[in-house]
């Protein structure tokens, strides 16, 4: 598990009181872990702070609503970790 993935899993476990060992890279935050949009705001805040980024939640939601993306692309944790790494890289560029 990458450092980013590990950090996300820990944030989710702490924020949503979900057993850490039930969170895997394949977990879908909404469909598998049952995280609702309000709890995801807490997760987004913790991720934003931890990585010094701003997760583009509204843009992602719009893309999903418009059929241009699936929730898997953003909310399966291994994919979320990739998005976060991209945002961190873009910040440093």
């Amino acid at each position, binding site marked *: 598990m990458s450092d980013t993935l590990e950090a996300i899993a820990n944030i989710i476990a702490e924020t949503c009181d979900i057993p850490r060992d039930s969170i895997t890279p394949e977990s879908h935050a909404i469909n598998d872990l049952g995280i609702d949009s*309000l709890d995801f*705001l*807490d997760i*987004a*805040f913790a991720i*934003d*702070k931890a990585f010094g980024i*701003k*997760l*583009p*939640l*509204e*843009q992602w*939601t719009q893309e999903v609503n418009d059929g241009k993306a699936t929730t898997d692309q953003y909310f399966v944790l291994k994919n979320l970790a990739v998005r976060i790494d991209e945002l961190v890289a873009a910040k440093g560029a």
Partner: protein
Amino acid sequence: MRIEYFQLIDRIVDLNLADRKITCEATVPTDCTIFEGHFPGYPLMPGVLLIEAMAQTSGWLVVAANEFKRMAFLASVKEAKMRTFVLPGQVLSISSHLEHEGSGYAVLNAKIRCDGKVVSDATLTLRILDFPNNQVAKEMRKLAESIGLKIEARADG
């Protein structure tokens, strides 16, 4: 305060967008039906209304920071503390600091002081959404102006 209209802020005393801070003032009314029940013969400002006052203060900061293009809605309250009783007639200074503005949400730390002493504080999360329609946007601007929010001065911080 016009509690019957759920308007808990009397006026905006200071808005500093550069520092992401706002301070509002509100006087707890001396005569209000709420005090007939909370509590009979022992009127106290309800803690939930103190939280609402902090939410409204925080909301104005978020709305101003978004240049009145979007609206703020209370989403969660954390670590809310009611540290001492607030009585009818007391003047409250309500301040809020925008700790973080994310995508579609903001996290703020708010405090209420009375005579310089903190009487309540909380961490609030607000959702930031588009105004449902132009009429609501217009009404919100009107309300903002009525409590002294100088929209045209916001760029000065």
